[in-house]
Structures are given as C-alpha cells and as structure tokens.
C-alpha cells in the first residue's frame, strides 16, 4: 500500500481539477471560438458596410446573416463529422443550444416588428442587448464565465456608443468595439483553450 502525504494528495487533486477543466474547455473551444469570431466578423462587416451604404442596410444584414450563419452551420457539421468525442448526451446539448439560438433570433425579429417606430439606432441597440443577454444566459447555463463577461461588456460598450455618439458614428463604433469585442475573445479561446 502506497502511503500518500497530504502534499501528494493535494497535488493529485490539483492535477485532476486541471485536466477536467482543460478537457471541457478543449471540447467547447471549437464551436465557441467559431461562434464568437464569426459573430465578430459579421458585426464588423455589417456595421461598417451599413455605415458606408446606409440605404442598403437591409440587404447588407441579410447577406451577412446568410454568410455568417451558413458558415457556422457548415463548421458545426464538419466538427460533428470529425467525431472526436461521440456522445448522445452531447448531441442533445448541441440540439438544445441550436434551439436556444433559434428562439433568440426569432424573438429579435419579433421585437423589431413590435417596435416599427423605434429610431433605427435604438433598434440596433435593442438587438445588441437581446443578443448579449443570450450570451449571458448561455454563459450561466453552460458554466462559461467568458460568455457572461463578453455579454455584459459588449452591452455596456454598445450603450455607451449610443448615448455618446451620433447614430451614424454609433455604427462605426459597433463595427470596431462590438465586432472586436466578440472577435478577440473568440481568438483567445481558439489559441488558448486547446
């Protein structure tokens, strides 16, 4: 029988904790980094093009949404096909996350229809706040504090931009700080959570 010292036991528990966290992070890293980085690029493109061509805003956002969500779907399917971890429980969780985002995007559209007279910049802020609330809820649900932090910070940044800047400069602000606020944490996850 091996006699273990308290220090050895403490070290073993620390190793277990480290590997557990590392494994869960590595599993989440792929879809999380893709989601954040693609979302960031979508915002950078959507807001900067809307800033440059405000009359074409609806078409710009439609194209950005199709490209962005299309890429996320293809990437997710590719990861599923790779099958690094096979689990019915994990597949079910992915389906729940997919349904969650479907519901969020549906409600964002409904809110836009509910308030047609809202100033377009305020509508943008409302959409941002709804999406960031979804990030915060996902962070709480999946126990991923990074999502909570990103959600709260981007909401505050967007609010500050709306209050301090003109509506048109708010678009540029959101392209840089909103898009960047999503892209950079995504890049961090991609590089550090492996």
């Amino acid at each position, binding site marked *: *029988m*091996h006699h273990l010292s308290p220090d050895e*036991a403490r070290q073993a528990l620390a190793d277990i904790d480290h*590997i*557990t966290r*590392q494994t*869960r992070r590595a599993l989440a890293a792929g879809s999380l980094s893709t989601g954040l980085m693609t979302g960031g690029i979508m915002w950078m493109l959507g807001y900067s093009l809307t800033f440059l061509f405000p009359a074409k805003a609806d078409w710009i956002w439609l194209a950005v949404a199709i490209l962005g969500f299309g890429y996320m779907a293809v990437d997710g399917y590719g990861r599923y*096909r790779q099958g*690094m*971890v096979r689990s019915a429980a994990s597949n079910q969780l992915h389906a729940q996350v997919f349904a969650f985002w479907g519901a969020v995007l549906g409600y964002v559209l409904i809110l836009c229809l509910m308030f047609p007279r809202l100033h377009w910049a305020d509508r943008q802020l409302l959409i941002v706040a709804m999406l960031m609330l979804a990030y915060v809820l996902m962070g709480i649900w999946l126990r991923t504090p990074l999502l909570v932090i990103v959600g709260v910070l981007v909401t505050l940044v967007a609010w500050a931009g709306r209050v301090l800047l003109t509506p048109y400069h708010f678009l540029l602000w959101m392209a840089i700080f909103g898009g960047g606020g999503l892209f950079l944490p995504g890049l961090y996850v991609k590089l550090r959570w492996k």
Partner: protein
Amino acid sequence: MAAFNELIHQTVRLRIMSALASLSEDAKVDFTYLKKLLALSDGNLGAHLLKLEEAAYLTQEKTFVDRKPRTYLQLTQEGRKAFLEHVAALRELLGEE
C-alpha cells in the same frame, strides 16, 4: 472510507481517467484527440490504456470513420466508480470529506 487506487494514482493514468471522467457517461473519445489533449506519445498513451483496460476501467472500440481507422475510448461504470472513490480517498486524506 473511500478506497485509494494504486493503479489510477500513477500520473499519466490519473490524467487519462480525469479526462474521460470529466465527460458524460456515454462519451467515447478518439485516441488521437486524447493523445493531443494530454500531450502524450502513441506508445505512452497506448501502454497506459492497456493497463486500464485490463482492470476493466475502460473499453477500446476500433472502428472506421470515412474509411479511416479510429479507436474510441470509453470509461466503464466500474472505472468511473473507481475514479470517484480514488478522488474521495484523496479528499479524505486532506480532511475535506
């Protein structure tokens, strides 16, 4: 009193068991994925997996994905129980439980 497990306590095997136990009970993990995650060589991981398999703590399933051979690893119920008991024994030693 929880049982301290000599087989699991070896550093590499402890890391393998920790990684597999951190996933859902039905999770099967690709050999190459686990190798990269734990930064181990093929031979090193393979040798320790064999010991854990002999103790019936995990199973190895060889299959083909897109016509390429793949090995999936899954913790058995016995393996998960032994790991949890080992963790409990470590905590008991520190007076945490």
